[in-house]
């Protein structure tokens, strides 16, 4: 378990927030996840993701190129699973097909650009967002900007090693993990409806 005192929480944290890694937040090992800078068990992180998404006013999924494009076997299946997850949550989806700098032309109504994700989040009043299929280096930049300038709660579903700069991050997210997360969220939703 990490002894680090820095908490990766929803901002706004101000101009130039530090990279969480530089504040001692470490990436989870295989089989672990990260919640607000603390290493946790994957199951706990999944429940936390469910709570955040289901209690959000305006949860939005931001799928990136690695899942928008069916560029190799298995991607279309993962894409479908993500869409099912978004449907269970009742979340909107804003695609992130490219990352080119667009300032000042970005249309925040329809697109997120990691150079200005705060504009999209402000414009759409997004309180919880999910990054999925976004290349890690771009995700890191965008997550830091979001934390610096908005109060949006960020969740990163990463196919690689996870993201310290997200408030919650799972790692090694494949089809099975997405399906398990969907089941966890659906179960939680059921409980919350009956409560």
């Amino acid at each position, binding site marked *: 378990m990490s002894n680090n005192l820095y908490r990766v929480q929803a901002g706004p944290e101000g101009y130039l927030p530090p990279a969480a890694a530089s504040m001692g937040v470490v990436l989870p090992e295989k089989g672990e996840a990260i919640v607000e800078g603390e290493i946790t068990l994957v199951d706990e992180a999944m429940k936390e993701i469910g709570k955040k998404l289901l209690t959000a006013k305006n949860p939005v999924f931001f799928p990136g190129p690695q899942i*928008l494009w069916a560029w190799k076997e298995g991607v279309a299946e993962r894409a479908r699973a993500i869409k099912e997850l978004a449907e269970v949550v009742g979340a909107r989806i804003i695609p992130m097909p490219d990352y080119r700098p667009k300032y000042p032309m970005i249309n925040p109504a329809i697109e997120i650009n990691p150079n200005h994700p705060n504009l999209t989040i402000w414009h759409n009043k997004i309180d919880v967002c999910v990054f999925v299929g976004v290349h890690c280096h771009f995700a890191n930049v965008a997550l830091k900007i979001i934390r610096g300038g908005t109060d949006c709660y960020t969740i990163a579903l990463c196919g690689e090693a996870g993201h310290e700069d997200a408030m919650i991050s799972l790692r090694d997210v494949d089809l099975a993990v997405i399906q398990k997360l969907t089941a966890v969220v659906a179960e939680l939703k059921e409980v919350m409806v009956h409560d």
Partner: protein
Amino acid sequence: MKKDVFKISPCFEDIMPQEYIELVRENTSPFDNNQGVNGLGGGKELIEEHPLCAGCGLALSLRMILASLPNPEDTIVVGSTGCSAIAFPQVALHNIHSLFGNQNAVASGLKRALKLRFPEKTKDIVVIAGDGATADIGLDMVMQSWFREENITTIMLDNEAYANTGGQESGMSQKGAVLNMAPTGKKFSKVSLPEIARESGCAYAGAVNPSNIKRFEKMVQRAILVAREIGPSYLQVFAPCPTNYKLRPNETLIKAKSREKDNTYPVKEYISPTAQEFLNKLEEGKHNG
């Protein structure tokens, strides 16, 4: 060989911007039906909302290169920092962005890895980078990849300046060229990279401009096919920059033609004997077939 590009994940077609849907829609791309450059204008190789300047020679040449690829589905484009790099997310091909100047080192590793990972498949690695990345900052990596005889194609989009950073002179600017950030004019001559490429081990080296599209297509294809079978290849593409050289957007091709005509940007082609033999066989086969 299949000519295809990657598609949008079916379940996300309803949320993708229309431009991307059009980019990959069946039968609208020159990648389909082996149209090559004859299909230019009938579809999209690059989305129209790309961020390059009006009349940009890079955008034009990039479209023509993409349409000329012999094997787009199994081609990976390696780019580098510069104007062209910000256009790559808007194509439906695999592409990798490297650190400035590292593109040929990345491409070498990629080619070797793909040979091991997909021994039964032909994978073309095509570096497409600007003159700063190729002839200046990246020249070390570029030449070392030629010395090692890596099976990769290097295509330089030569706009004769560091255009993306406001207009500094590059090694490829002409002697005397005055740019926004080179107000007293460049003091030394343009680097003769095709000749350097030839002497450094490239089996095919050339220089071309986009004013003649069939010639352009032939040279791109020769460069890629030679790199696939024989050894490294280099193609230098003149891509006039309207913004830094103060041209009107509609003067790009006029500029390209005039530089060829006045012999300040001649078309060149150097082919090693082995590569020539290989190309003769291929082109003979095409004519007979």
